[in-house]
């Protein structure tokens, strides 16, 4: 990326530094680990504020099942610290191995396939500190798992893509990690058959950790992940497969590899953009018809709530198709000057919030 080489790179080491930068720079673009390439590209003349110098786990008391870390802390580090105590981030953030940071994940609003079980990044963020567009250090939420005091400012940071403020610190709740995982996978002849299986699972009482439909060489395959006590997992997998009527049971090592690859988007062809599209089981058939015709790789995760779409063509074409279907999208990987595609809801509220938090438009437009 040539343009980034021309941008000034600022690497604050303290919250004070971040405040000073916001007060003294006309145009800024925030960058965490740089893994979400489509969101890291500054407009001409904007300086890059990198959070790499804001990296540290500030508080982690395992018995409390919460932690507070600075925004630039790599998720790999956080996951390792949690794993030592049998804990994990249940929203299963993507791109961890590529170097994604805590702040970048919040700002991009990204959760992975594991969000199926307990919820996404929005459901686990409990507190945040950010520097707004006027250089004010603002705190919202807290460090305890339950808190109803004041407006929920942490929610505003979810998906704000560095356009409402610069996240400098965040507190999360975490959960005990299941002892063991296993996956049952089923191949289908049509996307409708795969969707019907997901709907059937939605009507059931199975506790499912992840429920994805991957379209592999044009054939839909459902991956149903279970987790829990090692002593009962085998029996639960058998019960699930019998209930499904077919499917292959994958063992622990195969299971780990599959979900690791899903989290790193290993299926994405080189050079293609990656787009996040919130969907429902009802909106997938029409969307998939178009995607199948365009012959692109795609994966529907979290029981059909989110489409990850690979797009090697002109993004304007996808933008038009999404608008027509009243769907929205976010370009996560690839090169684009404007990452938001398709329909948007709440635009007028977002504009009002932006006018308050970044009145001089020092951060990119939202």
């Amino acid at each position, binding site marked *: 990326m040539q343009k980034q080489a021309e941008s000034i790179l600022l690497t604050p080491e303290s919250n004070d530094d971040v405040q000073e930068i916001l007060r003294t720079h006309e145009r800024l673009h925030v960058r965490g680990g740089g893994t979400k390439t489509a969101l890291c590209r500054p407009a001409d003349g904007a300086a890059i504020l990198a959070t790499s110098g804001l990296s540290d786990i500030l508080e982690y008391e395992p018995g409390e099942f919460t932690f507070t870390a600075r925004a630039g802390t790599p998720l790999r580090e956080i996951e390792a610290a949690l794993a030592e105590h049998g804990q994990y981030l249940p929203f299963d953030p993507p791109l961890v191995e590529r170097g994604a940071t805590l702040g970048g994940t919040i700002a991009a*609003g990204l959760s992975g396939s594991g969000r199926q079980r307990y919820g996404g990044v929005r459901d686990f963020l409990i507190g945040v500190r950010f520097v707004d567009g006027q250089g004010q250090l603002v705190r919202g939420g807290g460090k305890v798992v339950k808190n*109803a005091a004041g407006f929920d400012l942490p929610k505003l940071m979810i998906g704000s893509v560095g356009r409402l403020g610069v996240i400098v610190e965040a507190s999360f709740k975490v959960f005990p990690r299941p002892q063991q995982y296993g996956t049952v996978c089923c191949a289908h002849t049509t996307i409708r058959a795969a969707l019907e299986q997901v709907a059937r699972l939605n009507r059931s009482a199975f506790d499912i950790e992840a429920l994805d439909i991957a379209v592999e060489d044009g054939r839909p395959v459902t991956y149903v992940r279970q987790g829990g006590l090692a002593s009962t997992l085998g029996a639960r997998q058998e019960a699930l497969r019998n209930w499904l009527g077919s499917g292959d049971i994958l063992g622990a090592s195969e299971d780990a590899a599959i979900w690791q690859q899903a989290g790193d988007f290993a299926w994405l062809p080189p050079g293609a953009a990656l787009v996040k599209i919130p969907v429902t089981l009802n909106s997938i058939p029409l969307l998939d018809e178009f995607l199948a015709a365009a012959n692109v790789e795609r994966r529907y995760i979290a029981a059909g709530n989110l489409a990850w779409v690979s797009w090697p063509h002109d993004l304007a074409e996808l933008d038009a198709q999404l608008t027509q279907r009243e769907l929205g999208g976010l370009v996560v990987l690839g090169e684009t000057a404007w990452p938001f595609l398709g329909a948007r809801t709440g635009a*007028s509220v977002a504009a009002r919030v932006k006018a308050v938090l970044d009145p001089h438009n020092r951060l990119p437009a939202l």
Partner: protein
Amino acid sequence: MSTQELMAELARRIPAERLLQRPAQLAPYESDALTAFRSRPLAVVLAETQEDVIQTVRLCHRYSVPFVARGSGTSLSGGSLPVPDGILIALNKLNRILRIDIDTRVAVVEPGVVNLDVSRAVAAQGLYYAPDPSSQLICTIGGNVAFNSGGAHCLKYGMTANHVLGIKAVLPDGEVVQLGGNSLESVGPDLTGFFVGSEGLFGIALEITLRLLPKPERYRTVLAAYSSLAAAGNAVAQVVASGLLPGAMEIMDALAIEAAEAAVHAGYPRDAAALLIVELEGEEIQVEAEFAHLLQVIESSGPDEVRVAVDDADRARIWKGRKSAFSAVGRLSPDYIVQDGVVPRSRLGEALATIERLSRKHELRVANVFHAGDGNLHPLILYDGRVAGELERAEVLAGEIIAMCIELGGSITGEHGVGMEKRQHMPAMFAETDLEVMATLRRGLDPAELANRGKMFPGSEAPALHSRGPHPLEQQGIISRE
């Protein structure tokens, strides 16, 4: 005068039987469940359609008259207290369940739908709506959304905000907006989550898209009696540390047990100093294995007695006692304050010891009923409003408990909200800049500060009478506590 013009306009749009103006008609709406505050609105609009709400808000905006939305009036923080000479928009009749989609586990409801009615509507399909405030028999989804209500079962699946996917709302200036949608995922700032818990200051939700969960195949509920509150608190820490993830973990102390027993005969051990309820839920085979583990953890925590719920009726009895505890305390004392604060879970024992000390210092009894699993305390401070000085002492004690929560790194409210009650504590929890930014965000959506004026922010106006006693609806015989 603008209020006269407003009333004339309202009278043209709202039929007289749904536009209440006489003092006797207004009386039931003067207060909510925080009976310390009382004020009389100019009028009450009983909205039946979304259009009623939108038109009323637009008229209020045009004539610069403040308004407050109200569901069943169960707010314990005074969140639905009317603004004197403002309009109260009652939403109980705006209570249709608009759509249920079993395959995607979603329900779209109007704000006046009663919390438990959502679960009832989808029970036959094996689904339920998770957040379960103690008042779920009467409280409404609109109120739950405004105050991000919690409940006993928030430990695993979170509070109201975690179960709301989309909101259609009318902003305080009359603009109708759609936030979020039908998907669990979204793009752009999480405005739906931002709206939830805004205490009515961002406007009124007209349609709410809720996430439903599959009813667990199996529940396993255990009740353990301890000889001290500290021992029960320590047991919670041990259960949390064991790696189990219960659906609920609740503690009641001796006073609360006594009250609950007197009210609903839940069959609790009467001589216990503290009672711990832990519930596991999920697939049967997994829950049974986890339950065996849980019983070991509990046995090792030194309980005096352990009882396992043997069937659904037994389980229901245990929960009935817990959920009736607030109102049951009314049997022990003519008046009481329900407090709501949060401490880090690892400091529960410390917090309970401090409450005990404060109770002795102020010579007032305190009953403790709380969501132990997430550190959410609900001390009930008992006093007699007819005894000179007791109310004042009770309020000092309540304030000291909140100060302790902040000191321990917790929060001034876990689920009841700030409302009228906690306004003065906001500066202890947040810095001046934090509060100023929140106030500016509020003005960004409501420049004239018409929506629920006087709530959440410290030093706001909204005068109120100071009195205690039963809920006004109770006085009218409209609701009862049992």
